[in-house]
């Protein structure tokens, strides 16, 4: 038995004897165990993090972070809860960036594809530098998305940006002051609210409920005693 158990253990030398590495957090050198996430490295270094942590699952975009690896001049982006630290790494969290968000009544838009240019007049001014795409930790082709939005291909934009966690790392790098994530959010909502088929089956079901067609079935179930209800439930498979 013991033999068998030993066979079913995954080799993780890094766990048995964590190697300490030196990293830089906001310019300050600290030693932390190799391979822990960027956000854990901050906790390990004794830094209380309030702003900059959200879901801890890579979905909320709260922990947008800039980092650079040893001897590499290129500053990259990551979500701090989803990135492991390595020796010589240097990082700092992105502060909230004051991008302008347009406000709108999504259902009342008359011509959403034209309205894009009123709400976000900077959208067509993209100079194709591709910095936004390079900054995206979700690997979305952001630049392409902005152009598709401008050319009215809202459907493609909504599909491309389904992965967008709204971390906003595409905004500070834009030389045309476009906030691509906010443009895409508008476009996706417009796509859903204005350019997607109304599901007929859903309206049918809503009407059925309004017309109370399940009345008899409810009456039958709700007056059952515990035992009858359990028996009835067992018949539904």
């Amino acid at each position, binding site marked *: *038995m013991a033999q068998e*158990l030993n066979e*079913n*253990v*995954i080799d993780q030398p890094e*766990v048995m004897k964590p190697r300490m590495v030196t990293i830089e957090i906001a310019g300050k050198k600290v030693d932390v165990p190799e*391979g*822990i*996430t960027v956000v*854990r490295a901050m*906790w390990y*270094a*004794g*830094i209380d993090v*309030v*702003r900059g*942590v*959200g*879901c*801890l*699952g*890579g*979905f*909320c975009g*709260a922990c947008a972070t800039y980092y650079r690896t040893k001897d590499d001049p290129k500053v990259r982006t990551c979500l701090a809860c*989803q990135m*492991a630290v390595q020796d010589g790494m240097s990082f700092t969290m992105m502060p909230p960036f004051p991008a302008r*968000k347009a*406000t709108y*009544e*999504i*259902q009342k838009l008359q011509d959403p594809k034209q309205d894009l240019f009123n709400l976000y007049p900077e959208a067509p001014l993209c100079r194709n530098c591709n910095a936004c795409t390079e900054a995206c930790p979700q*690997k979305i082709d952001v630049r392409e998305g902005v152009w598709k939005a401008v050319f009215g291909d809202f459907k493609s934009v909504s599909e491309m940006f*389904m992965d967008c*966690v709204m971390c906003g790392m595409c905004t500070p790098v834009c030389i045309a002051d476009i906030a691509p994530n906010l443009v895409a*959010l508008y476009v*996706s*909502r417009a*796509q*859903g*609210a204005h350019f*997607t*088929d*109304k*599901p*007929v*089956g*859903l*309206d049918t*079901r*809503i009407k059925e*409920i309004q017309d109370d067609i399940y009345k008899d079935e*409810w009456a039958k*179930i*709700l007056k059952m005693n515990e035992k009858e*209800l359990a028996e*009835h*439930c*067992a018949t539904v*498979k």
Partner: protein
Amino acid sequence: MDIHALQQIVHKTRDARRKQTIPKFSPADRDQLIHKYHPDFRASAYRPIKFGPNEGDKTVVELATLLEGDSSIQDNADLTPQYTCDVLVIGGGGAGCAAALHAHGAGAKTILATKLRLGDSNSVMAQGGMQISVAPEDSPVTHFIDTLKGGHMENDHALLKVMVEDGPSIAKWLLELGVLFDRQADGNLHVKKGGGSSKPRLLTCSDYTGLEIMRVLKDEVINQKIQLLEFAAAVELLSDGQGACTGAIFKDLDNQRHVVVAAKSVIVATGGIGRLHIQGFPTSNHYGATGDGLCLAYRMGAKLAHVDTFQYHPSGAVYPEQLIGALVTEGIRSEGGHLVNAKGERFVNELDTRDVVSSSIIRECEEGRGIRTMSGRVGVWLDTPLLDAEHGPGTVEKHFPAMMMQFERFGIDISKDPVLIYPTLHYQNGGVKIDTNSETNVKNLFVAGEASGGLHGRNRLMGNSLLDLMVFGKRSGLTAAGRAQSMKQGALTLKHVQQFRAEAKKHGNASGVISPMILPAYTRKA
């Protein structure tokens, strides 16, 4: 052994397993399994609550201690309000946003306060989908029955009936706001089958259902110019001295100052308790899931329901270390992914309810058929490559982009290699007891979403949480707003805190614990 060597047995047994059907447990076997292996039945983790509305009821030690905890607010605190509103919503996740939007839409002056940013919540992580009976062969009644079975027949019937009946109109509301649910070729909503459900009923936005809904709701809250108080953690509720709720005190986490908000009604939508790490479990929950709303409502006299039962999601990641506790969506099992032990065997019908599947995984591991990691964890394989084998190459990548990316960041391709999983603390099945308007036994105090209790019985069915948030967010928002017109703002007092302190003293409670917790203590001290 090298992880790839250990994974070989999963690859080798795949074809044979595909021909197998594993029957679901009979009700008797299921009860026996759960009683033996489910963490809810580990007696040593539980103790009775010493005083308050649920005196004598058992819950996990971690929660009992916080419920009995003392307020951080002194009896003589300055209660001059900085803000006044009709409806105060505490919490910025799905239930909070839905409540605020409906209250605002009904004409109420609404404030939404949240201790992190708007939208930082568990809702944003919901991957599996949202159960709404839209398919022709399905009905709200079948949805009701499935949920009841999942909840061990202990669900509050009235709450459950309104949830399943409100579902379709909630889907319509979200579609009108621009939420992009997956569609069939004919334009109707695409539905997937979830664990414990007899019919396909899950509406999805690939594996980003919660993210998509929350992107839209957050945007709408901002578009509607609803007043926001972010990084404001609720530390105490206020009462009129006669038992009705009249506002709350917040701590601004940027400057540590107190902020008093007077409100005609308060909606607590503060979510769950995963970050209490009960019984030492890792969690899939967000940073702020520390049960704050439970503590606040409890001190004010609100009764809790089913606080002894928690949901351990069957598939939390165990490897790599960086992802421990993170969720591997149930959608993988919905599409046919097998659970496989170290011997290459399946051991449970993967689409049984979460409590049954989790208990089975714990059984396999306790009986020595698990795979261990060097950090002392154990798990079983989830055969993700099976989906590509079954439905064609590219299936995993196309249907589970979020999952793919999460593991890819650590050099793991889940379309090629199985994932090691073990149950992770996921959801608080119970919470503050509410009625069909989402109101508690404390007047003008509403609770919506995961913080509420009764609806899910002893085990929430997959996909019912997103619907719960929307339905009871809406109901609380509309009821609170509807009441605002005809009522005056009540006095702001801490009488309930004084009473609670007297009660604590009487029971000799001197734990020194202050609640709510607000954030978990992850920062290493020296």
